[in-house]
């Protein structure tokens, strides 16, 4: 057996993407291939889990273990995978609607628990797959199929959301910048705890063909001197002038991850005793105890 390192395209599955021509998600997929290759993740030790949406189709295109699950439910499934099999690389992916509308509650709790996964949100400010309704990220006032007279609701900044809820690594990327996105993906995937990467990934079909160009013009790298350990400083990059999209690592903070805690619990539970046999457990129901 010779060991050639994995190339990005070694992670490509046979399935042909069904995204629209020009969709930002193609570039995200390329960045995922590259990040996996640069980290040399074993395909069989890697699991991609998504919800439902155009973006959530992504795991089908990656030849690792993959699960395109239910709308909004990528994170609980990913949490179950990681808790059951901690050695796996677990990456959750999905859309802004998937993660912030129907899946919002799981986002809160995955962040709070600091579960050891990377969560990549492909943010197109719209519901792509259902053909163009407003998402929680759609700017207030925008007309969409479901907001005939303009969106009445204030939008959510996914990074602000993640930072506020306790994610320990938060970054923003632009899908059009494959190199930058790859770097940030690698960062997120190797972070200890819950890492959230918001990838701005234009929907050319429902947000207009010019989206990609317009966004490219707005993208700025985060200042070198940004203190990523500073909550308030990080939040400032989530209330930006609409003409700017800052990309990079917004926030990073170290605290024990869910798996650290689970390990602690196991130690405490046994407190140096050997694991009990089933018979021993059964005897706790003996009335003589």
């Amino acid at each position: 057996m010779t060991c050639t390192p994995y190339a990005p395209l070694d992670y490509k599955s046979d399935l042909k993407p069904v995204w629209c021509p020009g969709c930002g998600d193609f570039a995200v997929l390329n960045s995922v291939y590259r990040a996996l290759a640069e980290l040399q993740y074993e395909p069989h030790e890697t699991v991609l889990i998504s919800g439902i949406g155009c973006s959530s189709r992504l795991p089908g295109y990656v030849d690792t273990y993959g699960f395109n699950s239910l709308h909004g439910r990528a994170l609980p499934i990913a949490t179950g995978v990681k808790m059951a099999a901690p050695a796996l690389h677990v990456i959750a992916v999905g859309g802004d609607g998937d993660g912030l509308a129907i899946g919002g509650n799981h986002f809160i709790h995955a962040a709070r628990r600091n579960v050891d996964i990377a969560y990549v949100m492909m943010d197109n400010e719209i519901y792509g797959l259902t053909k163009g309704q407003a998402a929680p990220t759609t700017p207030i006032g925008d007309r969409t199929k479901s907001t005939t007279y303009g969106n009445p609701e204030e939008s959510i900044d996914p990074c602000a959301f993640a930072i506020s809820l306790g994610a320990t690594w938060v970054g923003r990327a632009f899908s059009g910048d494959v190199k930058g996105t790859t770097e940030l993906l690698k960062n997120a995937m190797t972070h200890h705890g819950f890492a959230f990467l918001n990838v701005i990934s234009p929907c050319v079909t429902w947000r207009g063909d010019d989206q990609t160009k317009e966004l490219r013009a707005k993208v700025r790298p985060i200042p070198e001197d940004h203190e990523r350990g500073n909550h308030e400083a990080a939040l400032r990059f989530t209330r930006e002038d609409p003409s700017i999209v800052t990309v990079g690592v917004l926030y990073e903070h170290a605290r024990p991850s869910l798996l650290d805690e689970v390990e602690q619990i196991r130690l405490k539970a046994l407190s140096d005793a050997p694991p009990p046999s089933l018979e021993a457990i059964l005897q706790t129901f003996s009335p003589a105890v």
Partner: protein
Amino acid sequence: MNELTFAFVGAGGDGSVAAGDIIASACASQGLHVMKTEAYGPQIRGGEASAVVRVSATPVFAQSDSVDVLVVFHWADFARFQNEIVLAENAIVLCEPGDAVPPELMNRRIFEIAFNDIAKECGSPASKNVFALALVATLFHLPLDAARAAVARRFGRKKAVVAEANLKAFDRGVAEAEALSSKIDGTLTYVSSTPYLLMSGNEASAFGALHAGCRFFAGYPITPSSEILHFLNEWLPKVGGSTLQTEDELAAIGAVIGGSFAGVKSMTATSGPGLSLMAEMVGLASIAEIPAVIVNVQRGGPSTGIPTKSEQSDLLHALFASHGDTPRVVIACSDVEESFHATVDAFNIAEEFQVPVIVLSDQSIAQSRSTINASSLKHQVLDRLLPTPDDLVEYRRYRHTEDGVSPMAFPSMPDGMYQTNGLEHDEQGRPNASFVVHQKMNDKRYRKLETIATRYPLFQRFGSATPRLGVICWGSTTGPVREAIERFGQQEQIAVFAPQMLAPLPSRDLQSFIDECDAIVVIEMSHSAQFHQYLRSQVDLPRQSTSVYCRSGGKAFTATEITEELQRRLPAVVSEIEEAFS
């Protein structure tokens, strides 16, 4: 006497439930059969509380019809339970002097005992429950040493004065009993034997999960199932597993599906409202063919309903919830011991056939404690079909096979990589919207149920071998039905068919049972006769000679209630048979 039922009723803090526990464990330790139930008012602390303990020299299958010995610390607290705690006609009642007995109970044998004063004399007003239990244990010849030892153990962890006061109260109870004993007859006759375990249905389910190899549990608290979460939270980490208390039930079943996808046997437990929230995920587990075990402990419905009482009304939801054609397995348990076996079967079937399995328990099983023979808690454990090296060559996760089961790889298995989903998909798992693929995959998924039906035709049948009247029931109704049948004895030619496997139903066996009987009665605790509706949809019930006895929950079935219903139907059977021969 062969058996006796004791009840303790008071306010929270009176220690009624503790008294019941001590009696139950003393009796269990001497090889007596015990069934113990608790009930509470809506107040979490300080409200009404009751414990009912049935003690018997022979096996018991249900709560008893009526209470033989009642200890009431406050009559005011008894009011809430008056529909549930029915006193035998010659019941003995022990209550505080000066606490007015309800007029309708004046005809029972009432003895005034100054529980409060005596407990105070012993050094702790809180010891009145111990005093009371010692009194009744002595009066009715329950295992006294075991009871005293149980008291010592229970209070041994507390401050020395407390422990002392309680033992003093115990001894005082023994002493006071002497004085009363002449006025009270009816003692329990039994021979001590090896101790039984004392377990609740929830504990048996949780232990069953450990036994089956479950190493991941995710759940959200809900009455009356939370004890499963509590137990596994304590024990799973000791055997290398883990638990996750999720944010809601959607996440709970989601995490279970994730854990199972990752190759680890996983379970959740809930009650009706939670099961309702899991409907969509059941469909995902079904189409993606991921093993998942859900223990659902039924309570009064619909909606929030009556959270602390039993009912059998989640049946149709368990069988049919989730949009689309969604094969799943549903297994019932009818008592504490079966909670263990049903849970292990659930894992075995889930794993072997890659399906979601719902175990239906209910509050009356899950939260009552029964004696169990440790040696009966054995059950073979089966595992998932893994792909062979050959299977992994151009691995097709959903390969069509004769029985519909395709070998299942799990993450970390080299060359087993596949991408799955809740969309209709082809053998590789790739989304596919064509009719032909859809039809074939539906076939595959439903074919598994056929094999399960053959391999697991689980049912209980008992009573007459040549029945005229056939009773069909399920779950916790089986216990009271069994006791009722036993009252009739063999002459009456009544038999009972109680499927443990609800889906797929052992239809062939059931149909031949039905065909053997001259008349059928379906008995269940659901206002809309859910079980009867389901049976009709699956087997042929003779239109003329089938009747139903169903009612709402909120009150346990008693053997007497069921005996009466059967009695009412027996003449019908007789006359019908006469007609047939005329």
